[in-house]
């Protein structure tokens, strides 16, 4: 599983746009074979899709519940694609677009790496590569009280969990897990942080363990924190 899915689809997308611009009719019968809106629902699954593609025509499917994941939206009677990527189906009825980008869309229960941007009386403002800055309440730490508020400088790297995420508000983070324990959340000291795409982060977090991490672990003893927002932190221990 060591390919980068979007690279191929990026070229496909560019060529699709080019071929559509030249000759719209020809594109319909091109090897992508994906644009007829009255095609059966499963024809686009596991194929590259681009914004505007119609995935499902709901008029043909009465009394069915469909679950839409990332990258899809409902436009009256059709389900169309918002983001370029690969369309996936999880039987029986969950559809989503798997894509890899440099920006992150916050989802609840995601673990991410954030950088402190500002300190306010009630919250830390943390950058998690989302459309807006995230708030980390100063009390969202294990055993946190007004007396022992941690002092984070601007630029501190934190491993945090997303607690609230919706469009209308800034995302909210926490350094505790559901039970209120610190788990491994909190400041990441020393080490080295680098930025990647969200797709690579998901690949590093996939199970079974990513071969890169296993191979590295055979040579070194290291600690790694992978954020779903496309940030990775590694630290090497001299043994």
């Amino acid at each position, binding site marked *: 599983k060591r390919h980068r899915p979007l690279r191929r689809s990026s070229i496909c997308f560019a060529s699709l746009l080019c071929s559509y611009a030249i000759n719209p009719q020809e594109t319909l019968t091109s090897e992508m074979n994906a644009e007829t809106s009255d095609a059966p629902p499963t024809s686009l699954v596991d194929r590259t899709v681009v914004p505007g593609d119609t995935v499902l025509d709901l008029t043909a499917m009465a009394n069915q519940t469909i679950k839409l994941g990332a990258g899809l939206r409902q*436009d009256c009677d059709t389900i169309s694609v918002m983001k370029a990527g690969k369309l996936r189906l999880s039987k029986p009825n969950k559809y989503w677009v798997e894509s890899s980008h440099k920006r992150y869309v916050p989802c609840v229960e995601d673990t991410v790496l954030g950088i402190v941007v500002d300190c306010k009386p009630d919250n830390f403002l943390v950058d998690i590569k989302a459309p807006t800055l995230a708030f980390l309440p100063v009390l969202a730490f294990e055993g946190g009280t007004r007396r022992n508020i941690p002092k984070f400088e601007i630029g501190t790297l934190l491993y945090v969990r997303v607690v609230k995420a919706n469009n209308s508000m800034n995302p909210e983070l926490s350094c505790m897990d559901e039970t209120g324990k610190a788990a491994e959340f909190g400041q990441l000291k020393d080490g080295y942080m680098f930025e990647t795409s969200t797709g690579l982060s998901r690949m590093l977090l996939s199970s079974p363990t990513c071969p890169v991490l296993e191979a590295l672990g055979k040579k070194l003893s290291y600690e790694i924190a992978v954020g779903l927002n496309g940030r990775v932190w590694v630290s090497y221990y001299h043994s």
Partner: protein
Amino acid sequence: MEYLDSLTGFRLDGRRPNDMRQIRGEIGVVAKADGSALFEMGNTKVIAAVYGPREVQNKSQQINNQALVRCEYSMANFSTGDRARRPKGDRRSTEISLVIRQTMEACILTHLMPRSQIDIFVQVLQADGGTRSACINAATLALADAGVPMCDIVTSCSAGYLSSTPLLDLNYIEDSAGGPDVTVGILAKMDKVTLLQVYFRSGLDS
């Protein structure tokens, strides 16, 4: 000047009246940007970089229920025949920046990212007519590369009317011939027009 050969029906560059120039697109060309694309239409070469959606830098411009889309169009000094000093804020650049911004705003689902900002930078590297269309096509690819939610992809092309014939995709010589030229931007799948601009200069006596 003969823009259309009466015997063969070919244009100056050997195309037929409704032939487009060769197009080429490539994405991910600017490493630092969240999304980027290089788009070529014949000899016109344009690069687009998209940053966002990210936190609004100037809080006074923040829109509470949708994303703020900013666009900047510029031409490189070396993009035209003579290396000319190009002031960035000149009228043509400002007008084209506004046109591209309005066109892209029509397809971006801005209500999904309130209080955020999306910056689109387009730079013309080589200008040979149709830079506006190439910029819109490049911006679309860059926005898709960045993962900005869009309702559809925008495609754009220009056309003109010379030697009593409609010509598709004008190059620089045909563009500066003095006939009318129209630039159209269309949402590809939804088949809706988001940009329609016509330029024509006419003398009082014609």
